[in-house]
């Protein structure tokens, strides 16, 4: 015996139309992929268009902030969890890298790997406490943990490691892929590195999103209790997602340290976490690349508006966030995408409608 429903007839028609629409043949290279590969290639050519050194400096900053934003947005997009404490991983990775290189005398590569390994370890430890909570409680706890570490880093007892309020000039030893400190402080070289990292991070996060694990996260976001009633543990997947997002933030932090070779405590401050959140929301956390565009808008806007010593930047940021939240909740990129889809649908009405009416 099988069940049928009253709309099964209509359903069958739609199914037929659907299958008729699908082209036969094996897996093909989908046009979307061609576009994506093209965009990645074009990205490497940005320095050809952005020629001024200051402008190049800006796009590098935007890329680093954008990667940081990708990490924060990952948690929002996949789990609806908003962290206000990821400066812990951004700044933490930067400082760990700085300390391993400067005080430990390690080469760039081991220092970098140790810093990122440390991020994973700390994220596991902190996350195992945090991911039991959801919603505003989670956000407040991330803030508390972030501030705890920020305060710790500023204490006189930790001054010998962090440099305290004086900051930490990072002394780098050895090379990474044949590059030295001098190359890292060059915005053109750094752009290439950042863009490569952007590509890898986007690809990795995209693959995670499409994987079964990504589906599981989405299911947890939509109805966590039901996931448990399906026999899945929900604690571990959320913890893993938290660690992934922390790792991405940490990667951005290491890039920051490489590029600036100087660290000050504000990389750990909660306003740094806030910036990652702001760029995610401006660009849109529900799209893959939203945070990158958000970071570009934020960085360029900052540079344009904070010239001549005026510091009304936070005012503009506030207005921008309000405007986005009121008029484009999905963020700039998200809203443009939605509009594009809507326009396309208007041009060619869905097959279902044509056939069944």
């Amino acid at each position, binding site marked *: *015996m099988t*069940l049928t429903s009253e709309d099964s007839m209509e359903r069958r028609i739609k199914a037929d139309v659907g299958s008729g629409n699908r082209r036969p043949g094996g897996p093909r290279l989908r046009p979307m992929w061609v576009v994506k590969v093209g965009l990645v290639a074009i990205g490497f050519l940005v320095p050809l268009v952005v020629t001024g050194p200051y402008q190049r400096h800006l796009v590098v900053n935007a890329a680093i902030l954008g990667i940081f934003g990708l990490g924060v947005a990952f948690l929002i997009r996949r789990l609806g969890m908003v962290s206000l404490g990821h400066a812990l991983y951004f700044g933490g990775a930067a400082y760990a890298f700085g300390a391993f290189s400067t005080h430990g005398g390690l080469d760039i590569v081991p220092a970098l790997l140790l810093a990122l390994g440390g991020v994973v370890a700390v994220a596991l430890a902190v996350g195992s406490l945090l991911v039991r909570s959801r919603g505003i409680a989670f956000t407040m706890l991330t803030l508390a943990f972030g501030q705890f570490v920020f305060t710790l880093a500023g204490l006189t007892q930790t001054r010998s490691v962090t440099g305290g309020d004086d900051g930490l000039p990072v002394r780098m030893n050895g090379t990474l892929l044949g590059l030295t400190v001098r190359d890292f402080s060059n915005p053109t070289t750094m752009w290439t590195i950042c863009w490569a990292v952007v590509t890898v991070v986007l690809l990795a996060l995209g693959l995670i999103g499409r994987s079964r694990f990504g589906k599981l996260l989405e*299911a947890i976001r939509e109805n966590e*209790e039901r996931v*448990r*009633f399906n*026999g899945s543990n929900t604690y571990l997947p959320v913890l893993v997602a938290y660690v992934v997002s922390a790792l991405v933030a940490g990667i951005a932090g290491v890039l920051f340290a490489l590029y600036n070779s100087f660290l000050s405590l504000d990389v750990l401050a909660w306003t740094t976490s806030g910036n990652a959140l702001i760029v995610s929301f401006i660009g849109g956390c529900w799209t893959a690349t939203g945070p990158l565009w958000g970071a570009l808008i934020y960085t360029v806007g900052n540079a344009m508006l904070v010239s001549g010593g005026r510091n009304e930047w936070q005012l503009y940021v506030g207005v921008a966030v309000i405007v986005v939240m009121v008029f484009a909740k999905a963020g700039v990129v998200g809203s443009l995408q939605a509009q594009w889809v809507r326009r396309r649908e208007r041009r060619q009405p869905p097959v279902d409608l044509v056939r069944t009416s």
Partner: protein
Amino acid sequence: MVLTVRDVTVRFKGVTALEDVGLDLQRGRVHGVIGPNGAGKSTFVDVVSGRRRGGKASIVFDGENVAGRSVTWRRRHGIARSFQRTSVFPDLTVRAHFELVARTLRDESVDELIDALGLGPLLDRKCGQVSYGDQRRVDIGMALVGGPAVLLADEPGAGLSRSQSLELARFIRQLARERDMAVLYIEHDVDAVFEVCDDITVLNLGRVLMSGSPAEVRQDNGVRDAYLGREG
């Protein structure tokens, strides 16, 4: 007896939702639970499925008291439930719903289940976009993945037409027979309950009013006064 439940008592701030309620489930049989709104039926399912833990209840499943076990543990070991209010993932495709559970429970025969539920043509649609009746099927379907020993079906017919819900009731009974599964079946449509159930427990105001075969329950004066009479 695959599942023996005893001494379930649940209180919400002064309101006694359940008082010393118990019942037995047997493989291959459908045990109906009826009772007016607020009788405590869903709360009982919450206790048996692990959503509500604590208290002195004893829930003996295959010889082991599982009262302290988590929802996840119980589901993995064969106590599944569906929900009175549809509980699906609106943004996931119907296929993804089944894949998620099938992978967790290592069930390789979900395709048959999907066919039996008539969900084949909907596999690639987002669950939020299929009809309400189909969402209910997905809800129940997820509970059936992995061939649970016990299915707790909390008003599977809620929101469906009478004929649809009767069809669903018969389908569930057939599954109980074919898969040798014990079913706890909650339903307001008394006719459907009398048709498909092998045993019936009547709850009223958190207490067991009576328990027995459909014929016994039908003839009971107390039940008629408290429940059946009013329902017509």
